[in-house]
């Protein structure tokens, strides 16, 4: 941590001194992945520092070839720096003046060429990081639509966005986070749309992060920025889809990219950002609206179904005549609430197991889980069949939530509500759900009311949530992002 306060040393003329510095500071000769290639060009020392694995060997060989050929074509060594600078065949050659920069750049995967007798070294960007190429994200699949998702490389991620928004006002501000990891974090936004106040807050918060490293990537950034505490509801939305990120940038959101994370953070976020999905916008507005309503139903069922049914089991008098047939028709030895919680936790076991199980085994595991456990639990008299039914529906409802984080938060809400109903019956249900609703409503993420546009009510914004509007008709950007430019498209001539 003290390193950052250290004086910045200029590059000495003697290459020997530089090598000693690298040995001391970076452990050249101890760490196997750091190396130096020493050349003689016109009888002067030229050294190339590199970090194995982060740069492309083929490019380096070509550069060395060029440098060595200087010996064949040139005789005067007085102008060696200019010669080398010219011969480094790469579009990104950056002169640097301090030893600190050499270290930073070599460790980021660039190669640094130092020349005897010169105070300036040359950094060449030949980086090639190990990583996968863009592929469809697992968590946000669509039937139709772009299949390129973000990857672990921030350069590729910003490039995927730039491919979709060629606007000259698109900005990617780079901030380094982590005293030791020096991870790149970028704020992506459009200059004349994004809210400057939000940008100011985000910039300040990201710069204020003082930690050694952020190996958990964007999640750690989120925790530093939003100070979530024990609140289970997700305060930001993550996406791995490049088209979703681009759509939000155009709406005036600020996107936080973090190197080594295949997802980006969308800010500011409300509850309703978590229940929308790219697929709605890939189908006709009618179909998109239908899909959205079905999803709302699923989300609602995932929270309320179990507590409500439990309430009817405990207080059958509440059931209206029309649906009085509902309820456990068999008697069991175990209280229904215990059955519900057991089944719900069983489902949670399955979910966790499915994540950790290798793919070939998970199909088999799913069969075991679905057929055997459910049926046998009924046969041995542990569960009544209704428990399996309602827990399964609530479980599926959890997975209809496009945001994984919100799905899990809803699960916690459901369990709390179930326990409250078991303890206090009707008042438990009414007061419990009211308090929970109030809790969600009073949340603010980055100064944005969490339940906007329902509460505080915004008629126009709410219509955008209720129906998936056709894009040609949506003239305005959502007011919640406080866009500097409210209009997405010019109005038609005949419209008033």
């Amino acid at each position, binding site marked *: 941590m003290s390193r950052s306060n250290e004086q910045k040393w200029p590059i000495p003329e003697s290459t020997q001194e530089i090598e000693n510095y690298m040995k001391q500071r970076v452990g050249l000769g101890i760490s196997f992945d750091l190396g130096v290639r020493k050349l003689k060009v016109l009888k002067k020392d030229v050294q190339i520092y590199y970090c194995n694995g982060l740069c492309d060997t083929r490019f380096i060989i070509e550069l060395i070839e060029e440098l060595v050929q200087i010996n064949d074509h040139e005789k005067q060594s007085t102008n060696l720096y200019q010669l080398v600078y010219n011969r480094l065949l790469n579009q990104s050659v950056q002169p640097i003046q301090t030893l600190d920069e050499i270290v930073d750049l070599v460790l980021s995967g660039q190669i640094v060429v130092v020349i005897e007798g010169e105070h300036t070294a040359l950094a060449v960007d030949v980086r090639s990081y190990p990583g996968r190429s863009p592929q469809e994200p697992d968590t946000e699949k669509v039937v139709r639509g772009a299949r390129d998702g973000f990857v672990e490389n921030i350069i590729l991620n910003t490039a995927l966005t730039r491919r979709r928004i060629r606007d000259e006002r698109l900005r990617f501000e780079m901030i380094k986070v982590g005293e030791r990891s020096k991870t790149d974090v970028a704020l992506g936004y459009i200059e004349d749309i994004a809210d400057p106040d939000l940008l100011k807050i985000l910039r300040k918060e990201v710069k204020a992060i003082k930690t050694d490293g952020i190996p958990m990537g964007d999640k750690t950034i989120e925790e530093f920025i939003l100070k979530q505490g024990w609140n289970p509801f997700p305060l930001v939305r993550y996406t791995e889809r490049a088209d979703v990120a681009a759509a939000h940038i155009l709406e005036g959101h600020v996107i936080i990219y973090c190197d080594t994370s295949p997802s980006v953070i969308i800010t500011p976020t409300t509850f309703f950002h978590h229940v929308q999905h790219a697929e709605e916008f890939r189908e006709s507005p009618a179909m998109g609206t239908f899909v959205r309503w079905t999803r709302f139903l699923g989300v609602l069922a995932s929270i309320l179904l179990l507590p409500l049914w439990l309430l009817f089991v405990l207080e059958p008098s*509440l059931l209206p005549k029309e649906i009085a047939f509902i309820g456990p028709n068999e008697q069991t030895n175990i209280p229904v609430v215990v059955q519900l919680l057991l089944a719900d936790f069983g489902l949670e076991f399955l979910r966790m197991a499915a994540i950790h199980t290798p793919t070939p085994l998970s199909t088999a595991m799913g069969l075991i889980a679905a057929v055997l456990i459910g049926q046998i639990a009924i046969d041995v008299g542990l569960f009544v069949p209704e428990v399996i039914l309602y827990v399964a529906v609530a479980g599926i409802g959890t997975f209809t939530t496009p945001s994984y984080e919100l799905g899990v938060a809803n699960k916690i809400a459901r369990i709390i509500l179930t326990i409250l109903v078991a303890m206090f019956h*009707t008042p438990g249900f009414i007061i419990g759900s009211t308090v929970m609703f109030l809790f969600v409503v009073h949340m603010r993420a980055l100064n944005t*009311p969490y339940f906007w546009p329902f509460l505080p*009510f915004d008629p126009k914004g709410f219509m955008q949530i209720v129906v998936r509007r056709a894009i040609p008709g949506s003239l*305005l950007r959502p007011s919640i992002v406080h866009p500097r430019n409210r209009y997405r498209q010019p*109005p038609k001539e005949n419209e008033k």
Partner: protein
Amino acid sequence: MANDQNIKNYPKPMSFPAMVFWTGLFGGVFWGVIGYVAYFFNFTEISPQVIIEPWTLGEWKNGWLGKVISIFIIGAISVGAAFVYYLTLRKLKGMWFGLGYGIALFLVVFLILNPIFPGIKPFFELSRDTIITSICLYMLYGIFIGYSINYEFELNKVQVKEASS
């Protein structure tokens, strides 16, 4: 983005009173529907239909038409409640004043206006569940009205400040 002559063609943001109107209407209808659902599941003995019960109307008032009409009447009354909030309390910051407004409305309806509605029993004869459900509904409704109007007010204030600076 577009040339300036066109700018008057752009859709205007909603005016404050219009927003209050829609908030009141939607709030009344939405929480009326929730109230009906609560009645359907016997959480409360009071159906939204109590609103048309004082009048002797046709047989339809007990059918589905009566339900729909009474929910819309609640919506219309709610517009009035929203404007009362707008005129008196809009400057009070935060959502908790809305909650207080809801409780105040509850007290007015259940204690003072109670005799008007034959469908609502005297306050002390209501069941515990009915009182709890009603008070929760009124609280949520009050927050819906109060928080929305105050938020819009704060938003307008910021925009006016930005425009003048």
